[in-house]
């Protein structure tokens, strides 16, 4: 059995013993099972199992979706840099990036299917689409892009030592490989749209002055901010995961210059994002919000969501990491690099949190109170299931597939 | 082999599946519109009438039948059976309505017949001249009617589009 196991592993790399691997897998599998139970309850008994309500119609899950999709942006953006802008150094992480992207998107879609009240009607959106709805845009792009990711994932799987032995698969994989630049292009295009429309999702809510933004044509400013922020967060997340995996597996996976490069890319994108975000915020405070009868300061009068949250988002989790990542000497130090990368990722999460949760917590009716919401265990379990699912898929991919081509050379 | 599989699937999907999907429910009484139209010279609205408030009476209640069939009028065994089974014990006939719409559908015969003067045939086909009433087809999954002459939403929409009639959801749903 151990033999068969090692048969599946890529040549020239060492992996933990089946025993160790099993020990690593088991807790995650357990978590996944528990989460699936929670999700099952929501599907069978209905969404009364959650702590969402008529005021807090969106909760933990939407926050999860927006966040993981932003973090998963690494897939399209790295692909874009590699295949379109020919940044060949990134070949070292592209496979890992694709897998992460696939995990994030499939996880998000799964969560969405639990989140809707009538999963049996999921196809209505495709059959009777309302073209004016950002959610339609999101649904279409994410579905398409998930397929793209799947197709990008296939060759990685087919490269597996055992599967290569089937000739037809080899041919298929070779053909697919020629397709990669096209797919990368398509993927980039789709991603730009759904990342954007995810931002638009809240930006168009004229009934929610805290989230509503003016914009260009049909797209509110958040549309573009989301694209930029996602593009910035993607590489940072890949950086983080790569570092994490090498720490856990105790192996050198990529050449030393790769991670700083990712960091630099992230920093370069983060700075303009912060700039635009600040401008957008100023416009909102001085024109958009007042025009709708809401003085912006009143949004921050409710504890715990004071103005600090805005400050943290822009300075603590934006400007600070950007500056770190843009200074070569700091980039060279892994500690700083990882610290900054984690700041970027947390910043994105915070931004998505503010947009989803804080927006709903703030009252719109003048005689309405501030609303609070705490997810139920079923919600949390479903959330964790997505995380566990990600870890599992990644672990298996890492064990049996070649996620980091450079690992072989580095390990000998 | 691949082809064989494909063909098998196609055959089953097109031939077998509908049989499984639809439940065939026979009508409780072999009623002939034809005979009633010819012999009794009945017109549609004689039995299927509009109420004053504009609602449609649909299939008439038993007393309408009893009006003529208190005693057998003909010699047919079916008529006798009908009288014994329903008229004498005064039991309503559990007719199967081919065109029974889902609960959430609102349809006003008054609007379509009185104002727009659409002929019954337009939706109900030649039901009025039929001599035998076939079994009703009921979708086992959705529980909705799958009978011929069942007007589904597409049929409604087409007609409404052609005539530029109301197109909002709640115009025809409730």
């Amino acid at each position, binding site marked *: 059995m151990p033999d068969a196991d090692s048969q599946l592993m890529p040549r020239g790399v060492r992996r933990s013993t089946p025993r160790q691997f099993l020990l690593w897998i088991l807790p995650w599998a357990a978590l996944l099972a528990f989460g699936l139970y929670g999700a099952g309850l929501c599907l069978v008994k*209905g*969404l*009364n199992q959650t702590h969402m*309500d*008529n*005021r*807090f*119609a*969106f909760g933990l899950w939407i926050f999860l979706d927006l966040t993981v999709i932003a973090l998963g942006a690494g897939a399209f953006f790295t692909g874009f840099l590699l295949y379109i802008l020919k940044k060949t150094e990134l070949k070292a992480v592209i496979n890992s990036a694709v897998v992460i992207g696939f995990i994030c998107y499939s996880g998000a879609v799964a969560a969405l299917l639990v*989140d*809707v*009240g*009538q999963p049996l*009607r*999921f196809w*209505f959106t495709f059959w*009777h*689409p*309302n073209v*004016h*709805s950002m959610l339609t845009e999101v*649904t279409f792009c994410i579905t398409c892009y998930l397929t793209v990711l799947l197709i990008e994932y296939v060759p990685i799987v087919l490269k597996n030592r055992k599967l290569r032995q089937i000739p037809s698969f080899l041919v298929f994989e070779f053909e697919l490989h020629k397709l990669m630049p096209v797919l990368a292009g398509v993927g980039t295009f789709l991603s730009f749209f759904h990342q954007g429309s995810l931002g638009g*999702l809240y930006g*168009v*809510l*004229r*009934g*929610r002055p805290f989230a509503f933004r003016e914009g260009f044509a049909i797209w509110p400013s958040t549309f573009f901010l989301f694209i930029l922020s996602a593009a910035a967060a993607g590489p940072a997340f890949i950086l983080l995961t790569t570092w994490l995996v090498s720490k856990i597996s105790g192996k050198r996976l990529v050449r030393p210059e790769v991670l700083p490069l990712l960091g630099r890319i992230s920093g370069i994108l983060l700075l303009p994002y912060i700039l635009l975000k600040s401008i957008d915020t100023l416009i909102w405070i001085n024109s958009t919000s007042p*025009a709708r*009868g809401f*003085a912006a300061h*009143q949004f921050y*009068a409710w504890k715990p969501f004071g103005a600090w949250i805005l400050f943290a988002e822009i300075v603590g989790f934006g400007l600070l990491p950007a500056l770190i990542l843009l200074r070569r000497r700091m980039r060279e130090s892994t500690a700083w690099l990882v610290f900054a990368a984690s700041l970027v990722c947390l910043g994105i999460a915070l931004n998505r949190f503010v947009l989803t949760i804080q*927006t*709903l917590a703030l*009252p*719109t*009716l*003048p*005689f*309405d109170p*501030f609303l609070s919401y705490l997810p139920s265990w079923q919600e949390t379990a479903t959330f964790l299931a997505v995380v566990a699912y990600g870890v599992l898929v990644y672990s298996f991919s890492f064990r049996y597939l070649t996620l980091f081509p450079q690992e072989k050379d580095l390990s000998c | 082999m691949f082809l064989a599989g494909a063909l098998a699937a196609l055959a089953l999907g097109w031939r077998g599946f509908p049989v499984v999907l639809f439940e065939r429910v026979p009508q409780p009484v072999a009623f002939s519109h034809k005979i009633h139209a010819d012999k009794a010279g009945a017109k549609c609205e004689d039995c299927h009438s*509009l109420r004053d*408030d*504009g609602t449609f009476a649909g299939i008439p209640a038993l007393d309408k039948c009893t009006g003529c069939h208190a005693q057998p009028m003909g010699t047919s065994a079916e008529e006798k059976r009908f009288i014994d089974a329903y008229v004498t014990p005064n039991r309503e006939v559990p007719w199967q309505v081919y065109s029974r719409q*889902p*609960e*959430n559908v*609102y349809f*006003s015969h*008054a*609007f379509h017949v*009185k*104002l727009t003067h659409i002929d019954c045939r337009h939706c109900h086909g030649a039901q009025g001249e039929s001599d035998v009433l076939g079994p009703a087809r009921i979708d086992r999954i959705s529980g909705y009617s799958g009978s011929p002459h069942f007007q589904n939403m597409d049929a409604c929409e087409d007609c409404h589009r052609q005539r530029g009639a*109301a197109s*909002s*959801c*709640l115009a025809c*749903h*409730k």
Partner: protein
Amino acid sequence: MSTTPTETTTKSAARPARYGMVIDLDRCTGCGACMVACAVENNVPPARPEATPRTGITWMRVYKISNGAPFPDTRAAFIPMLCQQCGKDTPCAAVCPQEAVQADPATGIVDQMPQRCLGCRYCMTACPYHARYFNWWDPQWPPGLEKTLNPDVAPRMRGVVEKCNFCHGRLHAARARAAAEGRRELEPGEYVPACVEACPARAIVFGDLNDPASEVARLARDAQSFRILEKLGTEPKIYYRTARSWVRQAAAQTEKESAHA
């Protein structure tokens, strides 16, 4: 307010209706008759044991607000809240991914189709009035009570959104009655939602805002009338009126201070 006094008072068949309400806050005693009548008319199920004010379904919901003054100077007012039938960039209609929500051009009523609804609740986050309600549970009536449901309105199922549609069942009935008499046009007063009919204080006036002669249009033009969150620019068709300045303050203006009320 699009209807101006200069408009002709004759209602031509071509001209679509724009149904709306004017609610007199000085008449409302918060008795809740409108809420109950609404639930009966529209087959809204009673609360599940676990239901709370935030998970219950009340198409028509009466809020109690106070002037914030402590004993003994305190004063209360009641604000009936229902779907405000926004006429411009209707927030919920714009966001629904599958056209389960649309503003009917013939009536101005914002339609919600529970049978088309996916239950994504995007429309609920979009609605500034919290006038949309989600079926968190399967609807359930005590045994026997389901026999008293209104045949003109289809019961909903778990997992979909519903909201006030000006008792569309009553509009259907009125139209059918008119059709039986060979009329296409409805006479004013032929169609009245349940809450309007039930209000013992006669606080709600309902009618066609496009008909400048109608009382509702006249009252809507009145200086005492205002709309809630008017500045959002969604042109709601529910007007409120009061002579009490503090009530208007608390209901109309959106400054934080009154949010504590």
